[in-house]
């Protein structure tokens, strides 16, 4: 045996052409004795239906919970509106009942008396308008007469 041939037998290298299965990766470099899973969970290819299902379940439960709160809020607001309407109705009813119980009397003025009072005022000789029409001698007489009546002449 030649030395060249011995070295080639000792240092046996792997064959060049290795069959690659694209669906499988083995990041840990461990050989499993059992069957390998054909689908790669770490791959970026198809997404898991489980995650999607969990997500949708969470969303649904949140939505249902919020719907319950919204319903309670709407109910409270509707009740307050109803109560407000009832208060207005009772106020209007009370007002109407009170208004019905009030009696209003009108006194017709005595126009004849009013006319006579006005006439007497206008005809009053001591009215300023009438006094201004007098001459000085008449005013002198009136002045003296008034002082005598007042007892200060």
């Amino acid at each position, binding site marked *: 045996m030649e030395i060249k041939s011995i070295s080639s037998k000792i240092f046996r290298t792997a064959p060049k052409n290795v069959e690659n299965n694209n669906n499988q990766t083995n990041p840990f470099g461990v050989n499993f004795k059992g069957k390998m899973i054909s689908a790669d969970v770490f791959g970026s290819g198809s997404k898991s239906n489980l995650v999607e299902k969990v997500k949708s379940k969470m969303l649904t439960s949140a939505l249902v919970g919020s719907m319950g709160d919204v319903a309670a809020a709407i109910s409270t607001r509707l009740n307050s509106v109803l109560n407000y309407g009832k208060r207005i109705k009772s106020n209007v009813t009370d007002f109407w009942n009170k208004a019905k119980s009030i009696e209003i009397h009108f006194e017709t003025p005595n126009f004849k008396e009013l006319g006579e009072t006005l006439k007497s005022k206008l005809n009053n000789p001591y009215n*300023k308008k009438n006094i201004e029409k007098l001459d000085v001698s008449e005013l002198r007489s009136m002045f003296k007469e008034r002082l005598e009546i007042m007892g200060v002449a």
Partner: protein
Amino acid sequence: MNNNTILTNIIETLAKHEDSAAVGVLEDVGTNCPDDEVRRLTAKALVTRNTPDSLSIVILEKGKGINDLSTNVAMSTINELLSLKDKSKALQILNDAEENHPDENIKETARSVKALMNFC
């Protein structure tokens, strides 16, 4: 209509009357009245007329206008003089009284009122 209102109407009419004879009526009947209120209203009417003859009565005559024995009447007349828009005639008569009047009391009063009018 009560007496005071009638009296006021008569005196105010005399204050504004066009006939200058109204001054004589005010002096004869009004300034000689024993009642203070009547004299006060009369003095006011004479100042309102603002003529030399009406102002002379309230400035130069003893016991009338600014020389009235009632302080109320005198002060009221002085007030009316100070309220005049045109004080020229009043100042002229006051000046004349201060310089020429025989009565010292009237001179003194005229001097005081003139000083007040110049101050206001």
